[in-house]
């Protein structure tokens, strides 16, 4: 539904005067001679929706892997919420409040939507196996609390009708939404979204965009997304970084990026050539 622009105020721009939540400082990542990321720096501030775009192999997913502790950069510093994550393991980074979704759906196919989401709450479980066995007191309270958190996300993402259906039975777009839900139940500070609209049709893409804006507006979670679909990025992101062959070639708000000659040559130009 089109809303006249004058009746919707411009989106509130996140405040960039404080401490950044993510600091990528001169990061280089190379594997046996191939340099995936070459001296890339950027900062992401709390509440921002920050996009990284670029052609295939530009180093977008590698950037995410450095942020979530999967890869260790060869040089430079990666900070999340003031912690150096470049020497941490993925599950330690998770405890800092970093959640991510993947390019390909990575759900437990035979678990229901509800169960897949409960798995996402695992990071918040503190009871012991013995306590869980007896299921009194804290273990029980936690279970109720966790279920409530999951139900809030089911409501947020309109997943009610899929609650008790196994994930593998569901359409691809819904599976992607469940994956987003699993990241949200972790109550992250930072959400890394790897191509959230990949493989979706127009309507599903619009839905995803809607949900991501709602996440920003209602839950105040900082989001970084890697995306191929330029339309999605231009409508959603507060700021964009463009990578090409591991180099950062531009950074700015979507309008600036669209006008940048370097970007047009490296990214849009190539896209146009491909077609």
């Amino acid at each position, binding site marked *: *539904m089109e809303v*006249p622009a004058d009746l*919707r105020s411009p989106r*509130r721009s996140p405040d960039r005067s404080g401490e950044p939540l993510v600091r990528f400082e001169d990061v280089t990542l190379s594997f046996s001679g191939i340099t995936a990321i070459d001296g890339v720096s950027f900062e992401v501030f709390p509440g921002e929706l920050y996009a990284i775009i670029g052609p295939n192999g530009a180093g977008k997913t590698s950037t995410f892997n450095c942020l979530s502790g999967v890869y260790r950069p060869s040089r430079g510093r990666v900070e999340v919420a003031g912690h150096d994550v470049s020497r941490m393991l993925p599950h330690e980074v998770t405890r800092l409040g970093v959640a991510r979704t993947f390019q390909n759906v990575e759900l437990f196919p035979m678990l229901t939507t509800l169960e897949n989401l409960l798995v996402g709450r695992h990071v918040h479980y503190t009871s012991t196996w013995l306590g869980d066995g007896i299921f009194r007191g804290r273990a029980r309270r936690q279970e109720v609390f966790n279920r409530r958190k999951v139900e809030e996300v089911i409501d947020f993402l309109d997943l*009610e*009708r899929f609650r008790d259906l196994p994930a593998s039975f569901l359409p691809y777009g819904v599976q992607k939404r469940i994956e987003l839900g699993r990241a949200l139940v972790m109550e992250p500070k930072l959400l890394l979204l790897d191509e959230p609209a990949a493989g979706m049709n127009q309507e599903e893409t619009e839905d995803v965009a809607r949900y991501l804006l*709602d996440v920003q*507006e*209602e839950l105040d979670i900082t989001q970084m997304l890697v995306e191929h679909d330029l339309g999605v990025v231009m409508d959603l992101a507060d700021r964009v970084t463009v990578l090409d062959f591991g180099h950062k070639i531009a950074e700015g708000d979507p309008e600036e990026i669209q006008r940048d000659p370097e970007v047009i040559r490296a990214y849009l130009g190539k896209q146009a050539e491909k077609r």
Partner: protein
Amino acid sequence: MMSMTSTATTDELIHRIHRDSLPGRLIHLAHDRSDDPALREKRLGVWDERTWASYRDEVLAAAIAMLDAGVSHGDHVAILSENREEWVFAELAAQSIGARSVGVYPTNPESEVAYILSHSRSVLVVCEDQEQVDKVVAIRDQTPAVRQVTVIDPRGTRNYADDRLVSWEEFVGAGRAQLASRAGEVLEHIAAIDPDEPATVVYTSGTTGPPKGAVLSSRNVTAAGDAGVEILGFSDREELLSYLPLCHLAEKIFTLILPLAAGGSVVHFGESIDTVAEDLLEVSPTVFVGVPRIWEKMHSSMMVRIANSSRLKRVLFNAGVAQGERLATKKEAGNGWNVVDHFVWRMFDLLVFRALQERLGLRRCWFPISGAAPVAPELLRWFHGVGLPIAEGYGQTEIAGMSHVVPPGEVRIGTVGPAIPGVECMLGPGDEVLMRSPQVFLGYLFNEEATAETIDEDSWLHTGDVGTIAEDGYLSITGRIKDIIITAGGKNLSPEQIENQMKTSPYIKECVAIGDRRKFVSALIQIDADNAGDWASRKGIAYTSFEDLASKDEVVQLIDAEVRRCNGVLARVEQVRAFRLLPKELHQDDEELTATQKVRRTAFYERYSALIEEMY
């Protein structure tokens, strides 16, 4: 939550409130049964319960908020939402202060919302969520009367610059805070309600022309409620699921009017429009109203499930349904069952019917009722045969939604039963059904001409429906006067009867019969994408889209066989001799269907004239 103080003054006030309006009835009910459950709504996976006292307090709080927003006597308050508690709070709050509620279908496109808001000159709009707000914001220029827009779920709208927006929580919260000091003020308003003044406007989505707003008084709706309770034996302990659009009277009767008339019952609001089947299973209502589409869907989903089940189950099921239909017909004809009949019924009830009813969520339902449109007799027989004796009801918006219903236990398939207490019914010229009753509406909003065409000098309501009345007063509806097909041979046919017959096939979702001034009857058919798709998959037929599926030769042959089967039940002149499959699904957004999913015939004939001509 703040509760009303029951001081001597409030008691005296309640005494002055009459029971001839819906808000008046709510106040008395909340007084007499304050702690009994009235509503349940499923939120975050749990059914939250609300008592009658809390129900009343929310209505009073919303009424205070409306007064503060400048809503006054005679104003219109529009509601654009799916069924949920706030819907009924807003409706009853508006009526409490002498304003009129106007329900708008949440599926209506922007243009239709604009028409209703501007035609009714609504001053306040209650929107469910961003989707509805976007429509109302976009049509701001066409609806200058709208002063405030309250949003129940404000997600995604917080940064909107439209200064009319306020969240429902904030809106009603302000009312709640003043409940202790100002409940009396609202009660005074309720005590002052004139039962013959307008209480609500229900827009009828005509299949021709723009919608008309039927104005109903408090007396219209309370009279319908009292008559309904009497003839149905509706108790004050029923359990209901509110899921049909609340802007339509069929659902308003069961969600609001009957519980308030009966002095209680619990109404459930499910999670969303997509979860009706699951909600139905959990609630297992004792009274359930369905429209033909719902029954058709239940029937076809059961048939598909049976087709996919084991051989033993199929054999048992078919035997059960055959015996069930035989026994139901025997009972309907007034012949008693013998010992063997009782035994057979009991056996199949245990083996087949019970499981089937449980799967549909209707095991506890003693009164399944069908309304809003005619339903095929074959479909009703099937349901009777599986122990769900669906009764048909009849009514029009213009007579507060219900004028006839088949009383429980006195079913006669193909009729809509006798007139309910207080309704006189007779046939006029051309066998048009005419009715007179305190339920007959006040007229169409801002449209005296249409009102004069509908209610004559002697107060008879002209329904536009053609029917027959049996000796014992049971009414049968044969069709709409304007839709009657007169074939080239001079025969008068009702397209609805032909179409409903075709729609008994699980593979046919929609059917439009054509034949006016033609040599024979033909039909345009929309296949049921789910069931036909399922059939194609089982046959190993690959398809990509709806259009592709509908153009497969195998599918055309399947439908051909179905049409031949359905023709077997029709008279010779009614039989469908040619048909074409529609390349797309009919949709409200394309102006092919009304909000109640009825085909807009005029628009339809125009759009598909090429396909139609092809057949002649």
